[in-house]
């Protein structure tokens, strides 16, 4: 069988790549700090000291920031899973921009950064935005994307105006409302963390409790409605929870990038698994991981904005998933193609050896390098390289002086299999599909490498266990493949061929 990229290997690759990018991100974080050191406006601590402070969790402020990041990563990852599979990424983006005026209004309510007032204001305005989108698409001929773009920018514009007004107020500078723009985990206070904890716990509990309803909603809403499940209610619940997650995450991630925390972890997870519950779990883990990394780099660089670093860390995970995911990964696919090509070349060499032997009615033991070169129309050097591959795969041996090639029993068996596949397929194309006899060779050259044993059984039955191909050449049968050696070979042959 062909070699596959094992999951363990792809995980190892992933962690190596991950490490490389952690270093790269660290450079981002460190450079401004070094620059600031020269100006002398930041306390003098080295990168290592700063990293040490992070990992010993000495600072209470840091502990809060980190806790907040983990919570927001968890809730954004979970809800993002639903957002992505329901193809609502743009809705998440719109929601995250539309809440900005609500945050400003929540602040103006009693002129402090009261988390509950801000949460209430933001959620209400965010949901208003989603309703407006819904309303526009329902009553006009505009499509949803236009309505989303419209609401996103209009609400965001109002939000920017309000935030600027607040900053111009006498107390505005100390308000901390600017943290909502780019995100600063260090600005999270104890009240904020409590609120995040509550919303995250509620989110996790409701998702676990209503998981099956939410699954039906995401996969086939009409079916859920027909069964009488409260689809509308679950949809609104999901939107509400998403609004909560966005608002509580906003202070740490920033208004512009917060929707990325919904999309990136879930999109990475989507490429890694094909079960919804695993997707949610993975998305939550990736969300938490990238949020924590964001906090780390922000701390390393003396309170740089957290949001961009979170998003970068998440993006790195996504790139890893895009390249290495076991099913869809770009490099995984390249690797599979490569190993398949190697396999095909090995099989073609074996087939050529078989044909050389067949041409002299299987007299004589081995095949010489020269004969093989003539048959394949290649140079001796090229053939030597091929033989080297055959030897390392244990399919052939080379005599000491390097002139004669001999099949190993396994090599001979595989040569028979591939010749059989080729000739069976030729026969099928001529007799059943009525291809002209001179058209079938090229087709069979490709197909011989991919025919599975099940298909071969079907072909044999369909063709009534043929002995000869359309050109009159014998089709190797099980007996040929077993060769000279005894019972056990027969046993092995039958097992591999799937006879029961």
């Amino acid at each position: 069988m062909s070699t596959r990229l094992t999951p363990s290997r792809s995980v190892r690759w992933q962690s190596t790549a991950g490490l490389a990018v952690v270093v790269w991100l660290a450079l981002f974080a460190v450079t401004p700090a070094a620059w600031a050191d020269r100006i002398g406006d930041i306390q003098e601590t080295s990168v290592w000291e700063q990293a040490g402070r992070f990992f010993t969790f000495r600072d209470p402020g840091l502990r809060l920031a980190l806790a907040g990041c983990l919570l927001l990563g968890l809730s954004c990852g979970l809800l993002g899973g639903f957002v992505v599979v329901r193809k609502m990424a743009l809705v998440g983006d719109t929601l995250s921009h539309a809440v900005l005026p609500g945050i400003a209004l929540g602040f103006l309510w009693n002129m402090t950064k009261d988390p509950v007032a801000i949460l209430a204001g933001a959620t209400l305005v965010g949901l208003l935005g989603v309703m407006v989108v819904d309303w526009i698409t329902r009553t006009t001929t505009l499509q949803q994307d236009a309505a989303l773009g419209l609401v996103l920018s209009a609400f965001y514009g109002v939000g920017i105006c309000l935030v600027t007004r607040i900053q111009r107020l006498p107390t505005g500078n100390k308000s901390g409302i600017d943290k909502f723009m780019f995100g600063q985990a260090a600005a999270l206070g104890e009240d904020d963390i409590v609120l995040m904890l509550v919303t995250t716990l509620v989110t996790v509990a409701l998702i676990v409790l209503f998981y099956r309803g939410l699954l039906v909603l995401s996969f086939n809403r009409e079916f859920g409605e027909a069964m009488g499940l409260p689809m509308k209610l679950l949809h609104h619940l999901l939107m509400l929870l998403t609004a909560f997650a966005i608002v509580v995450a906003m202070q740490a991630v920033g208004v512009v990038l917060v929707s990325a925390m919904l999309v990136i972890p879930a999109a990475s997870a989507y490429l890694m698994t094909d079960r919804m519950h695993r997707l949610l779990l993975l998305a939550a883990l990736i969300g938490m991981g990238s949020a924590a990394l964001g906090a780390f780099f922000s701390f390393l660089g003396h309170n740089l904005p957290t949001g961009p670093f979170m998003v970068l860390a998440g993006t790195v995970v996504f790139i890893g998933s895009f390249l290495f995911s076991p099913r869809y990964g770009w490099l995984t696919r390249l690797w599979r193609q490569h190993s398949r090509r190697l396999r095909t070349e090995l099989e073609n060499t074996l087939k050529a050896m078989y044909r050389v032997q067949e041409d002299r009615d299987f007299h004589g033991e081995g095949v010489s390098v020269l004969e093989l070169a003539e048959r394949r129309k290649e140079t001796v050097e090229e053939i030597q390289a091929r033989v080297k591959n055959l030897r390392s795969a244990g399919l052939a041996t080379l005599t000491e002086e390097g002139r004669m090639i001999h099949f190993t029993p396994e090599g001979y068996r595989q040569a028979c299999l591939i010749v059989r596949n080729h000739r069976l397929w030729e026969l099928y194309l001529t007799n059943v599909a009525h291809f002209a006899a001179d058209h079938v060779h090229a087709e069979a050259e490709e197909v011989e490498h991919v025919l599975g044993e099940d298909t071969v059984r079907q072909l044999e039955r369909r063709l009534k266990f043929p002995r000869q191909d359309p050109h009159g050449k014998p089709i190797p049968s099980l007996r040929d493949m077993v060769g000279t050696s005894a019972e056990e070979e027969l046993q092995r042959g039958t097992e591999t061929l799937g006879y029961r």
Partner: protein
Amino acid sequence: METTAPALETHDLSVAYQKKPVLYGVDLEIPEGKLVGIVGPNGAGKSTLIKAIMGLLPLRSGWVKVFGQPFAKAKRRVGYVPQRESVDWDFPVNVMDVVLMGRYGHLGWIKRPSAADREIARNCLDQVNLLPYANRQISNLSGGQQQRVFLARALAQESDLYLMDEPFAGVDAATEAAIIVLLKELKARGKTILVVHHDLTTAKDYFDMLVLLNMRVVDYGDTADVFTVEKLQKTYGGRLTLLSDVTRQEARQKAGEEV
């Protein structure tokens, strides 16, 4: 049998929903244990009728009764096979997950599927010959297999009335034959099945009764009585453009649009 309520009864069912085909005054009375086909040209409102029966579309008028009860009360006795294209087959679930969804109607809000539910789901998968594929992701299935997954899910609903939207669309001949055998088995067990069908060449053999639909019921009755050249011509020939135009115009006016 005379005293029992029909499996499905609709009275003056009308739908005039923007962007959807119009349905006008549909009166149906489908007795229990029948295999009934709905046939009609494209845009005749076949799918709309099924969705309207299940309350998935707003009605303009009329009512629906299932086994003598209003639809909302009898939801659990109705199984549904939606059109295959109506869902995203790349969705991260496997075959078993989808079939288990058929149990959710019985499980209600919070209860998890029990071992018994799983056994029912396995059984239903076996009936459509898909048990070996239970753990496969749904995008790795052929069109015919995907259709059978939907059938198995409907079977798992253990209903008495089944509404199926084009279960034969885009499936291979072998699957079609297997599905029709399954439907006849269901009928033999006393189930009532309503099938949207678009292939007139097979309609006569498959169904006991036919609904000829073209925005309104052109005719309804035993296949032998209804499947006549004259009636089919009446159904398929001559679109009722005026009926559809006027009804849609009325709907738009009601919505305050410029006409």
